[in-house]
């Protein structure tokens, strides 16, 4: 398992290499990118803050759960924090598995669970203001 909170550009190719293995037939990779609009507003940039120690722990828990729930081979996740421009990549999740269904399902599970329970927050900067984006309320 490779799980990391980073402040620099994520190297997607590196994460893919990390999940390669001879027993692997499928790799699914998800990239979250900064979109130029949200709720009808023109977004100029996004700022990601995080509770780093807890985010790291939660990400590791999510990946551990994936290994239990899906027939996956290897998982690599990096989430970037700081101020990101439009088009920049905020998160990369790479999952490898012998058969393709598991890669797709586990990769989707990781991003959905990140958005529900990992203490990372983003602030949108748009023309005329800034706002903390309200996401899911993490379940206790």
């Amino acid at each position, binding site marked *: 398992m490779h799980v990391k909170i980073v402040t620099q550009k994520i190297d997607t190719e590196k994460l893919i290499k990390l999940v390669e293995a001879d027993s692997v037939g499928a790799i699914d990779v998800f990239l*979250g990118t900064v979109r130029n609009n949200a709720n009808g507003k023109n977004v100029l940039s996004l700022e*990601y*803050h*995080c*509770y780093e*120690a*807890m*985010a790291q*722990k939660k990400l590791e828990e999510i990946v551990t759960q994936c290994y239990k729930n899906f027939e996956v081979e290897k998982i690599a996740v990096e*989430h970037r924090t700081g101020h990101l421009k439009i088009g920049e990549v*905020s*998160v990369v999740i790479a999952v490898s598995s012998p058969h393709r269904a598991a890669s797709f399902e586990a990769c989707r599970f990781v*991003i959905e669970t*990140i*958005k*529900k*329970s*990992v*203490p*990372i*927050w*983003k*602030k949108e900067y748009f023309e005329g203001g800034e706002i*903390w*984006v*309200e*996401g*899911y*309320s*993490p*379940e*206790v």
Partner: protein
Amino acid sequence: MKVKVLFFAIYKELAGTSKIELEIPENTNGNGLLEILETKFPELKKLRNVGKLAVNLNYVPLETVLSNGDEIAFIAPVSGG
């Protein structure tokens, strides 16, 4: 007893600080700590009923009784990814 409280994102902006160490009575729970914090940082009242309690990197119910040395954070709805 003494606890450490961390503030992130909207909590940090409203509290105006990212961390404090605090003396609180024995047997204080999450709700009790929140009341103490709202007295020190009245702006936090804006977030009432918004945050989840995290103690030592785990989400726990607000009724959880705190212990000396705990690292505590109130977690606003997350929006990463």
